[in-house]
């Protein structure tokens, strides 16, 4: 019998890879949760493709009184502001990604092969959950690329 890891457990596992001083892009879904689990004693700065560097973790249910529609992460969740945070346009955001200024990305995927090929934007023939491309994963060769997905999907 196979067991499926929960969202928080996957996020915690991904966060164990973070090294001190890294700038890490977090994608939609489970990856945004990894911002809750920075390893103790390490400094990690998070980047979100929608134009923010240095944001904090998603707000919890109890913190919703601080919700700001103008402060969301890649998963369109309300995020926590942090000192030193900066905002910029999508063009500048992808200059950071494609220009090699980001140390690692954590992104969601639909399927990963044993060689590390990633299917992350289309599921043919099924009712699609997400159709789209963000162009972050194609930089896996140059940045450390963590794929975060549920083992044993649909």
């Amino acid at each position: 019998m196979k067991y499926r890891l929960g969202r928080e457990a996957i996020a915690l596992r991904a966060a164990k890879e973070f090294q001190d001083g890294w700038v890490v892009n977090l994608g939609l879904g489970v990856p945004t949760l990894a911002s809750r689990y920075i390893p103790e004693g390490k400094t990690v700065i998070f980047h979100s493709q929608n134009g923010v560097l240095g944001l904090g973790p998603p707000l919890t249910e109890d913190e919703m009184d601080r919700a700001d529609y103008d402060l969301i992460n890649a998963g369109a969740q309300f995020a926590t502001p942090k000192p030193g945070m900066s905002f910029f346009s999508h063009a500048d955001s992808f200059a950071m990604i494609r220009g090699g200024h980001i140390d690692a990305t954590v992104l969601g995927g639909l399927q990963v092969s044993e060689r590390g090929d990633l299917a992350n934007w289309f599921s043919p023939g099924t009712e699609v959950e997400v159709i789209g491309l963000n162009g972050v994963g194609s930089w896996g060769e140059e940045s450390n690329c963590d794929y975060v997905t549920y083992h044993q999907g649909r």
Partner: protein
Amino acid sequence: MARSKIYNSCDEAVADIQDGSTIMVGGFAGPGGFPENLIAALRDRGTKDITIICNAIWGGGHTSDFLGRKYIDLCNLAENKQIKKAIVSLINDPTPNRSKAFEEQYRAGEVEMELVPQGTLAERIRAGGAGIGGFYTRTGVGTIVEQGKEKRIINGQEYILELPLRADYAFIKAYKADKMGNLVYRGTARNFNPVMATAANITIAEVDEIVEVGEIDPNIIVTPGIFVKRIVEIGSRNH
């Protein structure tokens, strides 16, 4: 004296938009930085055969509710069959009450869609606004994104040519404008807005507040007024 850039309503600001127009729409996901009042005006005007260039067509359509706040999203236009083509980085989202109108029209062959990697979309718009004839990128190499595109080896790596995007109109959501159309943004609501403002023949900005010339510190202006033709004050709703 030049005509004032200030329009009294979004209806007035979109009144000349003809069927078949290409329109860029700012925003990322949800209401932050999304010009929902201009979209509502375009919905009411009933303009047809629109080509939309935006990050995403998503949301709940006529029932749209983003994290507790009702707003007008692009699915409203899809539900009214006003969209002919979309140039986007994604459609749909994981929310349970999303509108499937555009996806269903695409699967039925009623509308066209060009999927563009999100960073390539931003850069194509930037190129369109800056008069750049195109650029080479590695994103998409080895996937169906490269089909039909010129390839080139640069420094030993394979790149594909991507061409610029321009539009007849750009709909922008900014935080504040002065009467010259200088814009500042707030938080992650900046997203695609500054690049789109540069890449359309007529850029229309809806803003929370219009202030007098000189009231915004020139050091913090993100979009200079030269890029903005029309501004509409809608009041503060987003935060």
